[in-house]
């Protein structure tokens, strides 16, 4: 048997995994190795993909590492995978954006921002596992609260929630001295 390097070991594990693996998971899996060495090997592996101009890159997504095809090959891969490309309606995207940026958030908060009933879209996003029910809010009526999932980060190639595109700053309204982001919403009674 040939000698195995840590980098090769990590490459084999990341290759066969069907979801991104975090460094913490790798630390547990490869308990006989030093954390620093594992970290270094992951970085070296990512570099190698870039340097050797492979069609695959090692990216950070959903709190972990995953091999993914580079976007320039998408057309060819689509020929193989006859799956319908993911498409999002503007309403689904709006709703996702509100949930992503304001989570945990209730349905009535989402509807306040969107101005329209959002039950059907929430159900559909739940079905697609892009959002999840986090629990219930401890206010009268105990409404369900929603947040995004790991699948959401995977779908939108997000390293973590902090990597969401920055929201445009809203000019402070003269009439309101409060921070815009977390002002309690004047929601109608449920």
């Amino acid at each position, binding site marked *: 048997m040939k000698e195995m390097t840590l980098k090769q070991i990590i490459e084999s594990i990341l*290759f066969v995994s069907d979801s991104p693996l975090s460094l913490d998971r790798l630390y547990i899996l490869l308990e006989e190795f030093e954390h620093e060495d594992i970290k270094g090997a992951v970085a070296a592996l990512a570099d190698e993909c870039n340097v050797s101009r492979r069609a695959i890159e090692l990216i950070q997504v959903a709190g972990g590492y995953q091999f*993914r095809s580079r976007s320039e090959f*998408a057309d060819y891969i689509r020929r193989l995978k006859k799956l319908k*490309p993911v498409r999002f309606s503007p*309403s689904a995207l709006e709703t996702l954006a509100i949930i992503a940026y304001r989570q945990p958030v209730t349905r009535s908060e989402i509807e306040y921002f969107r101005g329209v009933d959002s039950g059907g879209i929430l159900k559909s996003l739940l079905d697609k596992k892009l959002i999840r029910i986090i629990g219930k809010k401890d206010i009268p009526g105990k409404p369900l609260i929603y947040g995004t*999932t790991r699948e959401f980060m*995977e779908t939108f190639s997000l390293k973590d929630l902090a990597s969401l595109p920055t929201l445009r700053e809203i000019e402070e309204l003269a009439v*309101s001295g409060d921070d815009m982001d977390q002002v309690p919403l004047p929601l109608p009674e449920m």
Partner: protein
Amino acid sequence: MYQQDQNSLFPGDDSIACLVRTEAFEGPLDLLLHLIKKNELDIYNIPIAEISRQYLDYLDIMRELNLDVAGEFLVMASTLIQIKSQMLLPQITDTHDEELGQDPRAELVRRLLEYERYREASALLVARELLDRDVFARNFPSEELEAFPSEDELPVVEMFELVDAFRRILAKAPKESFHEVGSENISIADRISDILEFLQGRESVDFEELFIGTNTREFIIASFLAILELCRLRMIRLSQFENYGMILVQSAIIAETDPEHP
């Protein structure tokens, strides 16, 4: 390539000079933003009278085309009219007025700004490298991995999947059991679980002991219903030795730790 398609779904540029736009308006806020952009208005200083007129004109056209005007559009129409009338009133300077100095348009403006902001965010999101559209991963079981037997681990599952599974069950369950499956008796389930635990290892307890805890109405009702349910299921026995005397509660469950496995 798909990116472009999706971006064009967002109304905003008015280069299309055809009579009927095919883009959908997501709601009243979307329509209002469209009107503001089209008229190149300052969002912080919306001429409410003019915007209201155009908004209502639009609703009229929808009706003329025999389209259902969704309730949300009507709610916004009345909001606009209300703001318009408030703007017409002379500035009230009463000290007891909480709305003192508040621009009647303020909340609407805030909603429009927030809405616009999230819509921009959604455009940024969809412009990212999307999995299974732009980039692809080996998100399927690898043969090498599947070759090994699965170990019993705690499974990962979302709450929604659990509820959805119950919905599926109910959809195909025999009809007569429907009425029984109240969805609100969950806290009764909690009380049942607690009471059974409380009774475990005790010969009998005073009925009233089962109500010790939070003294809320809900708690008492849930406890009482739990006791009734446990009686019905013959999982507890109630006994009373004299009129108005102490009611004793006994577990009717035979302790069992050795599971019968088929």
